[in-house]
């Protein structure tokens, strides 16, 4: 079993507040890993350290080690290269206020793809991978903001895929969507996990059981339990995990 991420002894502080406490976790390559836990437990914070989005937050201090396929991401790695390799999809769909085409092409253009033919190909492929090509192929040059919420989120997934990442991070990607759009995104993730390692933060435990292979339960900045999703939901080892997933928390 090879790992996409190896996290060792990770501590994270926002000023004086310690948001993550001694996280040790190896994340399998391929497959879907779900992070669950109550609000403010640190799961979103952890996912943001994996592509260094937390760099943008002032007063955020990190100690410990995170390796992406063996490379220390807080070492010599260029942060923009890291973010190309580790794509991210956010809680609220955030397509740029430009055309569908330009949204997808933004990433490749950023990383130096200029040829029109090549861009056309990337745009079509990415949209197809994200299972939204048929819905937008006739309106590629119209604003992406005219799409429905679910379509926008799949567009954002396509946009992340366009730079050919190795890992895909999703921060509660369906929390703003209706059940049908949610279902489509879940289906999509299940097909994408063949080619990408996927880490998803979710508040929806059924979602975690439906799509993830491994699940980590977070509480107050610590990983309480991490293991196969089926094990964790059928036979949790820790009382706190049991209380949380059975809804008897707090």
């Amino acid at each position, binding site marked *: 079993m090879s790992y996409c991420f190896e996290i060792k002894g990770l501590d994270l502080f926002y000023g004086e507040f310690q948001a993550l406490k001694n996280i040790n976790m190896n994340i399998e390559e391929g497959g879907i890993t779900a992070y669950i836990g109550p609000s403010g437990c640190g799961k979103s914070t952890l996912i943001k350290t994996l592509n260094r*989005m937390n760099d943008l937050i002032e007063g955020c201090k990190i100690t410990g080690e995170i390796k992406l396929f063996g490379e220390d991401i807080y070492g010599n790695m260029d942060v923009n290269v890291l973010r190309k390799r580790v794509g*991210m999809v956010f809680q609220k769909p*955030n397509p*740029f*206020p430009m055309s569908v085409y330009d949204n997808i092409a933004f990433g490749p253009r950023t990383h130096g793809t200029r040829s029109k033919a090549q861009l056309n190909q990337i745009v079509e492929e990415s949209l197809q991978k994200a299972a939204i090509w048929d819905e937008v192929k006739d309106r590629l040059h119209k604003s992406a903001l005219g799409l429905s919420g679910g379509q926008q989120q799949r567009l954002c997934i396509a946009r*992340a895929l366009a730079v050919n990442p190795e890992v895909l991070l999703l921060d509660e990607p369906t929390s703003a969507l209706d059940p049908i759009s949610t279902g489509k995104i879940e289906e999509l993730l299940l097909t994408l996990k063949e080619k990408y390692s996927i880490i998803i933060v979710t508040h929806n435990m059924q979602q975690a059981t439906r799509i993830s292979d491994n699940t980590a339960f977070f509480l107050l900045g610590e990983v309480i339990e991490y293991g196969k999703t089926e094990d964790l939901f059928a036979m949790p080892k820790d009382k706190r995990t049991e209380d949380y997933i059975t809804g008897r928390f707090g």
Partner: protein
Amino acid sequence: MRNKRSEGAMAAITWIGAILTIGILLYIIGFILIKGLPHLKPSLFALEYNSENVSMLPAIITTIIMTIIALIIAVPLGVCAAIYLVEYAKRGNKAVTLIRMTTETLSGIPSIVYGLFGLLFFVTYLGWGYSVLAGAFTMSIMILPLIIRSSEEALRAVPDSFREGSFGLGAGKLRTVAKIVLPTATPGILSGIILAVGRIVGETAALIYTAGTVAQIPVSPMQSARTLAVHMYALSSEGLHTNEAYATAVVLLIVVILINLASTKLAGRFGGKAQG
């Protein structure tokens, strides 16, 4: 019952407010049109000004030139300052507090003070004399706070999610600002610029001290010239051409309306592109 009554009273007050505002506006426009329209004649648009025809064409052209130069100076400066404030400066940075305090102070200063400053600095100290350039520089200083403030607001209004999305794709700060943030903020920045244009077009006091009042089409920026508003002020203060002054007012009014229309259209086009 009490609720209903107070609601009725509230509705009445708002209605009165609205009617009064529109009424006053219509009254002013009507007044200017009635007084000015009959005196609009072709000779007012003669290429050369003389005390017979009191042509306003040189003033119109001066206004346009003055506005363009002032914007060329102030807009890049102001927008860049705003970008620095919003995108680059760290919170609690001393420079930020300083810039913000300066812009706030500057925006509260009466325009005549800018005029005196322009007179002392550009006209006298730099030796530019009464000139379009001195006027334009003074105007650019005057509108700078406005442009900084409105650009800052427009940039702040760009949702952070766009920035996150861009960074998340591996785009650097510069690319994110240039390709995502600025285009999104353009309508807001434009509306600030248009307000600034309005202030330049309507300005008199500061220009009299810096650009002078010569009624001619400036061939070089170092020449003195008068804008439309200054022209109107000159006519009405001389008292000899009151009718022509009203006619000029009509033109000024139309110019302002045109600017407004153009700006909404421009903002609409940019905004439309941006927001679908």
